[in-house]
């Protein structure tokens, strides 16, 4: 027996289901390519040897430079980078879901949803203009 839930609940759930499924398919496909050693950005063996290092040192040791502001995506042709990009899509899922239900929300909830969307987007763009540590 189900209870009647508000329209925005159903829509939110539907968008989350579709977006996470898409992100997961991309994640699995790229991971299989990576594990089959098809043109990785950093060889899996090297990752295991150096994963204890802080992020900045890890990249210096493995590719000769640090990663800043999503610069890893400049090497999007490699399957391990595509795997990270699929996480990017998964992280955008709540934004998509909230944007979809925004017209259905009323009063204060519409304002609060706009605040949540802004916070999520701020979290995403912040590294582009403030650096990872906010400096």
């Amino acid at each position, binding site marked *: 027996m*189900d209870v009647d839930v508000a329209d925005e609940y159903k829509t939110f759930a539907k968008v989350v289901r579709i977006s996470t499924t898409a992100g997961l398919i991309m994640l699995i496909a790229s991971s299989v390519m990576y594990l089959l050693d098809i043109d990785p950005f950093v060889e899996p063996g090297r990752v295991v040897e150096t994963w204890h290092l802080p992020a900045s040192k890890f990249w210096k040791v493995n590719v000769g430079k640090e990663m800043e502001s*999503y610069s890893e995506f400049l090497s999007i042709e490699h399957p391990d980078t595509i*795997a990270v990009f699929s996480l990017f899509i998964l992280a955008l899922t709540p934004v998509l879901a909230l944007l979809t239900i925004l017209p259905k929300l009323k009063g204060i909830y519409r304002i609060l949803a706009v605040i949540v969307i802004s916070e999520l987007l701020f979290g995403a763009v912040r590294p*582009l203009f403030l650096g990872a540590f906010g400096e």
Partner: protein
Amino acid sequence: MEKGLANLRAAIVITTVSIASSIVGSVLGLWITNELPEGKHYITIALGISLFFIFAVMVKSKRVEFPEVGKVDSTSEKLDLSGRWYEPSRDEVVEYKLTRLPYSLPAFAGVGLVASMFGLGAGWANVPVLNLLMGAPLRVAVSTSMLIITLNDAAAMWVYIARGAVLPLIVVPSVLGVTIGARIGAMIAERVRPRIIRLVVLGIMLFAALLDIEKGLAGLGVI
């Protein structure tokens, strides 16, 4: 959410505060890991000890499965943080109201900060705040907590992606495990008795407390 278990309204209100604190927490987490590697271990131990206290409070609390909410504060009343779902163990539709929002928001802010600092997940603290403080039935608290975590973590993870701190070799199996686990968990959570949910929540809290203390002590080289 389609069954009425996760309270989207409550999640939207709570995440306005907790996302902001998770963004700050993720920045602080990276900074501490890079600049003060030992600081992270002390905070992990402190978190484990705090979890023990929350665990003890939940063990002692009665009516955790279906808390009785008397007077609802005016903010929660205005925001209409109520809901209902079909409870199979009672074979009836259960209606509930959430309360004490003004006291809960600072708690959620603190949880978001600490959880995103070290990628610890926040279910261990969201569930007790929703259940013990706001009066959410345990089943609703668990479902709403998962929704809050989804929103919070989505905000906190950008800084790690931007910095290249996400290694597919580690993240991919864990994301797949979490996703499959979450889908199975959601299916089971609908049907299982609230008493079992309570035991599982308590078990996870105890395990997480022990794990945090062990991780912290191991990080400091004590054990």
